[in-house]
């Protein structure tokens, strides 16, 4: 049992942090970047590719680096820390993960190689309007005519969907189950928009759109889709952890520097005690994130699904607590788009509602309390 990073992991963290800091340590730079489409910095995307970050999750055979979940988690934490807008989670972890899990060897080599090289952006279209974190996606249906597949229906929100060079779409199969398809943006109608934190997403309308099955045509891939969703949730929790760490740090810095009534705010015990409670929330979140990330290596989908729910619940609650208190303890300034703290709170919400909110995870966990005696860490 070991909760520490090894030297290589430390080095990875430092280099990612260094790269992202040059770009986004100043929140104004993030603000300028997200002001215009595509909502991130294409050059940064290339640099991440050059550093091997985009290929981290994929096997060397597919053009990737073949790193483990801990490394990917490190990247996501660093992204969260400065609110870097690059669509790593959506494009690499989620959409790339689907390709890696379900693609044919040719599809994997082709797409993951180009993704790792920063040549393409992928987006997963797996949710219909009003949908709520289900691996089935009843709003999009696949049809087979001869050996030509087409999709019809609407996916929304598709994170990074407006910029994506290729869509990885889930759709209900004619004979039941859910399949995965590659769809060219040219064959759909896309309307991009910004989320509350200025992440980019899109409405994607399929209307008899030509689609290439990912992997074996016609096979129900629900189980794999669920696994990748759970991995994405855990990596999203890593990203949220990075945000929360930055918020706690910013809050303590503010309390020790901002003056009211002639003294710094840390003179007021009611505020410092609340900062202490934020820190407690942060540590609990950190523990769950580390744990959930480590469960992935075990390779048992049921364990990982359980871990995703558990970290989703804890991080969801910590995120609300820390995000809300960070704004409150800063006061008005954190209400402004000019300041990273409030935008971080928006980002926490977007992550949570995108990947599964705490109510969702709580309901799932509550349904299972009768199935075990205790919940044990190891």
């Amino acid at each position, binding site marked *: 049992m070991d909760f520490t990073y090894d030297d290589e992991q430390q080095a990875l963290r430092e280099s990612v942090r260094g790269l992202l800091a040059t770009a986004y340590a100043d929140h104004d730079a993030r603000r300028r970047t997200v002001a215009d489409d595509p909502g991130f910095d294409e050059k940064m995307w290339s640099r991440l590719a050059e550093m091997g970050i985009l290929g981290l999750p994929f096997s060397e055979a597919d053009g990737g680096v073949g790193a483990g979940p801990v490394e990917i988690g490190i990247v996501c934490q660093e992204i969260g820390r400065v609110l870097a807008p690059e669509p790593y989670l959506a494009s690499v972890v989620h959409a790339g993960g689907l390709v890696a899990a379900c693609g044919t060897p040719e599809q994997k080599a082709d797409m993951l190689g180009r993704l790792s090289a920063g040549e393409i952006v992928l987006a997963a279209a797996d949710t219909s309007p009003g949908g709520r974190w289900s691996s089935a996606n009843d709003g999009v249906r696949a049809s087979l005519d001869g050996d030509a597949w087409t999709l019809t229906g609407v996916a929304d929100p598709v994170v990074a969907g407006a910029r994506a060079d290729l869509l990885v779409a889930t759709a209900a199969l004619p004979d039941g189950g859910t399949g995965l398809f590659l769809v060219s943006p040219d064959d759909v109608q896309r309307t991009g928009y910004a989320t509350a934190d200025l992440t980019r997403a899109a409405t994607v309308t399929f209307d008899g759109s030509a689609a290439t099955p990912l992997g074996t045509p016609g096979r129900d891939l629900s189980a794999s889709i669920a696994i990748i969703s759970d991995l994405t949730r855990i990596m999203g929790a890593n990203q949220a952890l990075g945000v929360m760490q930055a918020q706690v740090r910013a809050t303590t810095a503010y309390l020790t520097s901002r003056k009211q009534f*002639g003294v710094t705010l840390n003179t007021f015990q009611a505020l410092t005690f609340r900062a202490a409670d934020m820190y407690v929330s942060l540590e609990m979140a950190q523990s769950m994130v580390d744990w959930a990330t480590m469960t992935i290596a075990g390779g048992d989908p049921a364990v990982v699904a359980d871990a995703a729910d558990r970290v989703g619940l804890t991080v969801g609650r910590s995120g609300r607590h820390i995000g809300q208190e960070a*704004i409150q303890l800063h006061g008005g300034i954190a209400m402004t788009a000019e300041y990273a703290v409030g935008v971080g709170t928006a980002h926490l919400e977007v992550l949570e509602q995108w990947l599964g909110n705490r109510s969702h995870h709580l309901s799932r966990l509550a349904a299972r309390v009768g199935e075990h005696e205790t919940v044990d860490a190891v």
Partner: protein
Amino acid sequence: MQLELSPTDADFRMRMREFFTSQVPQEIRDTVLEGRHLTHDQIVESQRVLNAEGLAVPHWPTEWGGQDWTELQRHLWHEEMQRAGVPLPLAFNASMIGPVLAQFGSQEQKKRFLPATANLDIWWSQGFSEPDAGSDLASLRTSAVRDGDDWVVNGQKTWTTLGQYGDWIFTLVRTDPEVKKQAGISMLLIDMTSPGVEVRPIELIDGGHEVNEVWFSDVRVPGDLLVGEPGQGWTIAKFLLGNERVGVAPVGATKRALARLKVEAADQLDDPLVRARVAELENDLLALELTALRVVAHSSDGAPHPASSILKLRGSELQQAVSELALDLAGPASLAARADDDSPQAGWARRAAPTYLNLRKASIYGGSNEVQRQIISRTILGL
């Protein structure tokens, strides 16, 4: 003790309800009820409808358009407006500068400003907070220096809500830097079209343009626009902030928001955990509404009841909690925050995240919840 309204008050309430639901344009009320943003013109139109009926500034002196109502009637008026989705009369006009001018203004100032203020012919902005004077207002640094009959104003105000619409701004300025903090402050009325006044928008985390910075560079203000006496600004400010009591807890609006949410997310009410959250909130809102009624019942004219801090505190907490529930019920659809109306996601769900973020302000602005707790612990509990 008795729960029922007297026949007089019950009639009064019915009269309000009928007027608000029949005379204020449906489109304006729908905008409020659905949580969409009101335009400048909608706010003006609505207030003029009210003012024509004598319902815009009922708490002013009758001489200047007020009504001789009981505290309970004012409360019913206020609640019925929220219930019907009627925009509340602009607080800067109706609750802030109006009562101040009626109390402290010269007869000339009253004549010049009060009717126009009631009718929203003048849109007032508030110039109190500064970057280094928020909760600690007495530290303000914007200065006004005598030059003949005029005052010359320099400095910066911030958090000026809807300042982009402002015609005039009532400001606290330091007219005497020599005396102790509070004693050197005065209130000046400033025409925002004066040379040297600049309004800069502050973008908020919900993407909205709701507050502003206002900069004054050698702005020349005629001497007859000082309210009361020089140095009386702190007294006037305390009077003004005390008047915020009316309408301090948005009970009716929060109730409507929750009721709408139950309809909009009706399919999720099958979930017992959702129902439990709704039930808790409904109960908390009832407790708050009853507390507001108790405060109204115990208020004597003028002095704000110290329990009004409780209304502010709980009112903001519940407003925020309802917005948080809406966000959770919206789920992934809440990502479509800045999608346009062609979005396939429901409007309420698209508005959930910006509303949630925007309402974080409820516990910060208008006396933060920390300030309210301080008032409660000191004034009520004697700690």
